[in-house]
C-alpha cells in the first residue's frame, strides 16, 4: 500500500492504495464518491470520465497513484454549493438528456470538457466528441440537443419534439 494525495472538487484527500488501484476505484471505494461510474473494463464507455487538472480523463484508465498531487473534478462537484445545477446539468434535465442516469456523470463531464474547448459546437462536433461515451438509453438525441442548448444555441428547431 502506498499513500496517495490529491485534491478532489477542491478538497484535499488522501488514502492508501495498491499499485493496481484505479483512480475510479479510489474515488468510489476509498472516498465513497460513487457518482463516478464504471461501465466497462476496456476504456470504452466513458461512464467514469472525470477531469484531472482540467482535462477529461477516463478514471478507469488511470492509476490512483498517477493522480498524486493532481486536482480532480467529479460529477459531485458540478452543482453549486446550494445544490443548483450548472448550465450543462440543467440542460440535460430540461431536454431529457438522461434516462437511467448511469452514463450521465460521464456525459456531463465530457460535455463540460467539450464546451471549454469549443463553446459553440455544431451537431457533428458534439457527436464526434462523444465518441468515447456510450449511452444505451437515449439514442443520443436528447444528449446532443442538451449539450447544444447548454452552449446557448437555439435547439427548438431540432427534429420535432
Amino acid at each position, binding site marked *: 500500500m502506498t499513500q496517495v494525495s490529491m485534491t478532489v472538487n477542491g478538497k484535499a484527500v488522501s488514502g492508501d492504495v495498491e499499485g493496481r488501484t484505479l483512480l475510479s476505484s479510489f474515488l468510489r471505494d476509498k472516498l465513497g464518491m460513487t457518482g463516478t461510474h464504471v461501465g*466497462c473494463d476496456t476504456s470504452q464507455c466513458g461512464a467514469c470520465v472525470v477531469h484531472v487538472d482540467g482535462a477529461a480523463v477516463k478514471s478507469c484508465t488511470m492509476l490512483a497513484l498517477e493522480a498524486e498531487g493532481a486536482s480532480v473534478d467529479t460529477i459531485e462537484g458540478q452543482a453549486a454549493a446550494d445544490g443548483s445545477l450548472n448550465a450543462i446539468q440543467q440542460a440535460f*434535465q430540461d431536454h431529457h438528456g438522461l434516462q437511467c*442516469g448511469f452514463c450521465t456523470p460521464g456525459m456531463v463531464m465530457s460535455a463540460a470538457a467539450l464546451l471549454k474547448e469549443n463553446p459553440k459546437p455544431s451537431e457533428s462536433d458534439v457527436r*464526434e466528441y462523444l*465518441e468515447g461515451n456510450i449511452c*444505451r438509453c437515449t*439514442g443520443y438525441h436528447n444528449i446532443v440537443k442538451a449539450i447544444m442548448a447548454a452552449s446557448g444555441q437555439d435547439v427548438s428547431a431540432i427534429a420535432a419534439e
Partner: protein
Amino acid sequence: MPKDSGIGASPKRREDVRFLTGAGNYTDDINVNGQAYVHFLRSDVAHAKINGLDTSAAEAMPGVVRIFTGADFEGVGGMPCGWQVTDRHGDPMQEPPHPILAQGKVRHVGDPIAAVVADSAEQARDAAEAIVLDLEELPAVVNMKAALEDGATKVHDDLTSNLCYDWVLGETDDAAVQKAFDDAAHVTTLELTNQRLVANPMEPRVAVGDYNRGTDEHTLYTTSQNPHVIRLLMCAFVLGLPEHKVRVIAPDVGGGFGTKIFHYAEEAFCTFAAKACNRPVKWTASRSEAFLSDAQGRDHVTKIELALDKDNNFTALRTNTLANMGAYLSTFSSSVPTWLHGTLMAGNYKTPVIQVNVKAVFTTTVPVDAYRGAGRPEATFQLERVIDKAAREVGVDPVALRRQNFVTEFPYDTPVALTYDTGDYNGTMDKLEVAADFAGFAARRAESEKNGKLRGLGVNCYIEACGIAPSNVVGMLGARAGLYDAATVRVNATGSISVMVGAHSHGQGHETAFPQVVAEMIGIDESQVEIVHGDTSKIPFGMGTYGSRSLAVCGSAMVRATEKIINKAKKIAAHLMEASDADIELKDGVFSVAGTDKSVAWGDVTLTAYVPHNFPLEDIEPGLEETAFYDPANFTYPAGAYACEVEVDPETGKVTIERFAAADDFGNIVNPMIVDGQVHGGIGQGIGQALLENCVYDDSGQLLSASYMDYAMPRADDVPFYTVDHSSQTPCTHNPLGVKGCGEAGAIGSPPAVVNAVIDALQSGGKDVGHIDMPVSPARVWAAMNG
C-alpha cells in the same frame, strides 16, 4: 397549448437531479459494513466434464473466507424457468436443471464453477486463480441446425436431444397451409437470421447479500427490473426460504432492457453465502463477466414464405424458425420465440392463413432470453422484410401493398391467438408520410446521387402485444406466474401521497409520470405525490417492469387504488358537509356538494381521516390507504410505421443513417417528453442491431465479441436526430388510462426500416440484392453489391 401539469404534460423529471449530481444510489454504490467480496471462477471452455476441482491451495490464500463449489449446492434448487411451453404433440418442453454452480459439467463459456468469498475483491480474484481445475473438454454445440442432427453431441446428457420444443401456432393442418400456397398467384420466400445481441445496460449486474442472525432475515440488493419476482423465484424454487424473511431491494438501476428481469444464479448465491459465511457478500460484474453471464437476446434463424393472390392480397404466411436457447433455460426464455413471437406474425395485416413453427434448441452458449421487444422484433423483422421483398417482386409500391392489406376493422381476431382491440394503421401511415417527408425523397436521392452515393428509403410497420398480460390467458399458455400488478396509495394526514408501485423504474421516469396521473385524478399538485418502488418491504407486490407494461398494468392498479381513495374521501367529505355521498363532487382538490356552495378541501378530508373526531366510524374505518391489484383483460397493441433513409457509399459499402422518422400509436400519453425519449432509445438500439451489433461465437463456443472493443454499440455519431410523431392515438379500450405502452416500439420498429432502406438504395443503383443479414456492415453490403 400543451398542459403544464397532469396527464399529457411534460414536467421535468424529478429523478434527474440525483442522477445529474452523482447522488444516485445504484447497487454497486451500496456497501454493507463488514462485507466480503465474491469472485466467480467461470468456465473458459464451452463444454467440458469437470474431472477435478481442487480448492485447497486457494483456500490458503490471504483474505479467503470460504470457497464454494457445486457440491455446496447439492440439494439446493436450481434456477427455474417461468414458462412451460407445450410442443406440437401436446408434450411439455424438455427442461434441464440449471444449478447455481456447475455440477459435474460446464455448458458455456462463463458457466460458474466455483465462487471465492474473500475480504477484498482483489483477494477473491487472486485466490480464484489458484483453484486447480481438471476439465475434460467435450465438443461444443454452436450451430443450431447441427445441434438437431441425429448423433449430435448433447448439451444435457439426460435429455433425449438438443431440442427443447417443436411448437406450432395458427393453422396446424400442414395440408391446408400448403393448399393456400399452391393456390397463390405469387409466393415470396426469404431466409434470414435475426442475430444474437447483448442487451448491455450500461450498469453491469451487482448483487449484495446480507443476513441478520438476530432476526433470521435476508436482504438482497440487486440490479433487477422486478424485485418481487426475484424474491418469489428465489424463495420458492431455489433456496426454499420463507418470503417474509427475505427482502429484495432493487435501488436505482442503470438500465435493464430485459436482461435484468431474470433471476440469476449470482443473486441466489449471494443470498445463500451471506448466511453461510455470516457476513454480507457483494458481487459486482465486470463488463467482460456481463458478456458471459447476462442472458443474451434474439438469435433466430428463419425461413418465411408469403403467399399473395393475383390482386396482391396476402393469402397465407408460413414461417419456420430455429430459436437458440443457449445452454440453460433462463427465466422467460421459452416464452420469447413462442408466445411473444408467433402471436405477432399477423402484424398489421389481415392474412387469413398463418402457420408459425418454432424449434427451440440447446447449444453450449450463454442462455438467451428477452431483450427489448423480446420476440416481437424477430416477428416484425421477418414479416416486414418479406413484404418489402414481395412488393419488389410483384412490382408495387411497398407502402401501397401494406395499406392494401391492413387490418381496418376492430376488434380483429388474428389467426395467431390475439384480438387487437383498436388501431388505425392507415392513419398512422399518413402521419409517417408527413413526418418522414416522403414527398421530398426524390430530390434528396438526386442530391445523394450527385455526390456519388446511393440513397434508399425504407418503410415498415409494426404491431406489438404489450401490457403483459392477462393472467388466465398466459396461465393457459404455460406461464408459471400471474402477470397482474399492484399499487398502494397511502394518503398522509396532511394530504400528501406515497404511491407504492410494483413497477420498477430504471430509466422510464415513473417517479415523474405516475404522480401526474394521481395528481390529476385528485386535482392536487404533482409535488404532493411521491412514488415508492424497488423494495419488497415497502411495496405490496409487483410483477415488475418489462413488456411495456408499467403504465398499462401497474398504472391501472394505481388508478384503481386512487379511485378507491376518492370514493372513501367522498364519504368522509359527505359526513363533514352533512350531505349524501352521491352528491359529492371532487374538482381541483376540493370536495363540494352538487348544487350548493358547500365545500371542503382535500387536506381537511385527509386530516379528518387520521384525526377522526367527527367521522362516520360506524360506516368506514379511519385512515386513508388503499391497495389495488389489476389484471389486464387483454394485451395492449401499440402499432406504428417507421421510415429510414440511408446513404450507401458504393465504393466501401458503408451505410449512414441520414433520416429516421417514427409514427407511433401508443393510445393516450401521460408524459410526451418521456415517451419521445423511450422511442429515441429504442430506435438507437434498433439501429444498433441493424448496422453494428453482433454477438459471435466461434466453432469452439468461444465468445468472440466479449467486450465493448468487439461488440459494437451505436455511438453518438452513428445516429441522426430522429423525428417522432405520436399524434395518431387510438386509446386502448380495456384499461382505465387508455394507454398502450411505448418502451419497446423503437427497438421493434426500426431494424426492418434500416434494412429495407439499404436494399432500396442498392436496387436504385441497379444491384438486384434481395436481402442482407444484420448487422448490415460495410463488408456485407460490399459483398452483396459485388457478389
